[in-house]
């Protein structure tokens, strides 16, 4: 998107000195346009996410939602399972905290499509602007991920303070944490892109689809129980999912030395195929990058196809009353 800085001597639009159409405007400014579109969309997304009329309600929402998710599992393993160790609680709390990222990342892009199409009726205007539609969506999604990050951090803080989970800032493997977080967030956004592609095509009642998808992924991501508990075909899906490697990588990074992991272990297909009890940290990073790259590629292709189909069928400016 080309923009003109408000130069003092710039000829006024419509006056004879303006000179008419400037072909240079059609060329765009490459990376600068992408940056601008992304930052504007992020700002817009944040304003929409944080646009609560009651800040107290926002706070309750940010705190209650993620903590409740974690508490459900803590009760399940602690109260019903007959008690648990700090390490086991840490395993579960970290998994549910990280799922805030997944949930918000998946929902972020998909709900942006639905919001703009159904509520604000702005989708077509965003689409026909010179900014890349995908970049704008990514920017909007990032804002929601930020909200998810707040929830994750609060959950971890509560876990450390009240549940005694073994996380200590001094023990964190920061390089590994940074590496897996970057790779993981890219993957989450890619999954969100896939959902957004679906929502571009669907009409009625698609608001619950991101949550449904996240709920299904939750089963095979090792978030709250080891994958070895699942039947072999489901385990395979888990090992092919980048989210499993991501969660495991974050656990290794923030709770090094804790023996409980979601990948590997007795009865797992990892142990049977690879012959070792569990993957090493470098293996986790490599697997995350590999599976993440595949998912991201698939998401980009899928989104382009969906975009094309939506244009072909005139879905971009319809409102479905949902």
């Amino acid at each position, binding site marked *: 998107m080309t923009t003109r800085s408000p130069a003092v001597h710039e000829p006024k639009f419509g006056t004879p000195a303006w000179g008419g159409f400037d072909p240079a405007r059609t060329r765009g400014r490459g990376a600068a346009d992408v940056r601008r579109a992304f930052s504007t969309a992020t700002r817009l997304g944040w304003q929409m996410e944080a646009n609560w009329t009651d800040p107290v309600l926002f706070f309750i929402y940010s705190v209650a939602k993620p903590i409740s998710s974690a508490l459900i599992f803590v009760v399940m393993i602690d109260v019903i399972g007959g008690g648990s160790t700090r390490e086991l609680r840490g395993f579960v709390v970290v998994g549910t905290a990280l799922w805030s990222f997944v949930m918000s990342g998946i929902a972020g892009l998909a709900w942006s499509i639905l919001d703009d199409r159904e509520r604000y009726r702005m989708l077509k205007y965003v689409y026909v602007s010179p900014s890349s539609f995908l970049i704008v969506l990514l920017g909007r999604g990032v804002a929601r991920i930020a909200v998810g990050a707040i929830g994750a951090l609060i959950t971890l803080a509560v876990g450390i303070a009240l549940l005694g989970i073994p996380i200590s800032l001094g023990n964190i493997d920061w390089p590994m944490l940074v590496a897996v977080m970057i790779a993981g967030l890219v993957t989450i956004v890619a999954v969100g892109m896939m959902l957004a592609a679906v929502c571009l095509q669907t009409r*009625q009642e698609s608001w619950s689809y991101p949550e449904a998808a996240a709920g299904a992924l939750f089963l095979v991501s090792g978030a709250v129980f080891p994958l070895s508990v699942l039947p072999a075909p489901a385990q395979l899906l888990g090992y092919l999912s980048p989210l499993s490697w991501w969660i495991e990588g974050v656990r290794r990074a923030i709770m090094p030395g804790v023996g409980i992991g979601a990948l590997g272990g007795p009865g797992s297909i990892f142990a049977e195929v690879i012959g070792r009890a569990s993957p090493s940290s470098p293996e986790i990073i490599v697997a995350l990058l590999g599976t993440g790259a595949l998912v991201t590629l698939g998401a980009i292709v899928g989104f382009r196809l969906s975009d094309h189909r939506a244009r072909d069928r005139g879905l971009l400016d319809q409102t479905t009353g*949902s």
Partner: protein
Amino acid sequence: MSAATPANPLAIDVRGVRRVYKSRPHPVVALDGIDLQVEPGELFGLLGPNGAGKTTLIKILTTLLLPSEGTARVFGFDVATQTRQLRRIMNMVAGGEQSGYGILTVREQLWMFSQFYGLGTREGWRRVDELIDAIGLDDQRHQRVSTLSTGERQKMNFARGLLNDPWIFFLDEPTLGLDVSAARSVRELVVEWKAAVPGRTILLTTHYMAEADELCERIAIVDHGRILAIGTPAELRRRVQRESIFRLELDRLEGGSRALARLPGVVSASTAADESNDRERQAVVVNLVLENDAALGGVVSALGGVGATIRALRKSEPTLEDVFVELVGRGFDDAEPPGDGDQRPNADQGLRTDHRPGTDARSVTGNRPGAGNRPGGDRTDGSDRLRADPASPDRRRPDPSSERVEEELV
């Protein structure tokens, strides 16, 4: 106005209605003391610019909004307390509506609403099918609402409005956003329905002059929450034009327009530029302002006496926008002059002498400022723009907001 009785109540009876919205930074007075009576069987128009209060009044009458003060009754039913009864006999259609369930077909959408109005299942389907035929949406019967064009959607909304055969039909800018063909189609439906069932009442709000002029039996001009004038279109136009204005095309005129100006009954006469490009048929165009139509005979005789031939004779009339401008001092599209924000237009204010933008300075006549003289022009073409408004040099007052007029007058 006939006297209303309990047995024959007025269709609409609004007395002293005010509506104030509590908004920041200061409250908005949307309606400021409205008094309005509409007889049963009338097609009554509310004409005014955006923000005048038309939609607010309709929302009060359709029970969607309460008045802050005053009373309003529709066929004797109080809009505040007898909503249930009232909703059984009325319906409404607004322009620019996007309502509807996109997943349903036109037929299904209408049937759903037929159920809301108490029609039996089978009766509902039957009426829906008949209405779809009557409205001309046969091809769209099984088409999803989300795929309709704007015009088709509005026809569907219109059909929805007729489902319960309402005694009073509220139309809030029904042609808003429609193209010429679709708008004409909707207007024809209104006229046709009204003609078929003369006992039914329609209240139509619009800011399209031509629409109000064409459809309405009586019109109220509204601005800033007040009714400035009420009357038939002809009565309203007569407010601003007491003289008769004619445009004559002559083959020649000895002595110029001054000779005509001295004739009895002639207020002013002036020559205008001949706009025709036909060089072989050069004409002298004269704009005449007469005290009344009867004076025309004398002019024609005088012209005959000097051997001039009248090639064309047209009478000009002011438009409703001229009426509005007279009442308010600005056109629908004009911004309010600075400092006028707190003023409330007074219906009895009388004529203004402000010159309006868009004047055709070539046609300079001695008419009274405010009269909508349009040489050769038929005003009722549906345009909202102000038309050229000639004024005599000694009477006109240039509108400082119009640069174009300044240039033309110099």
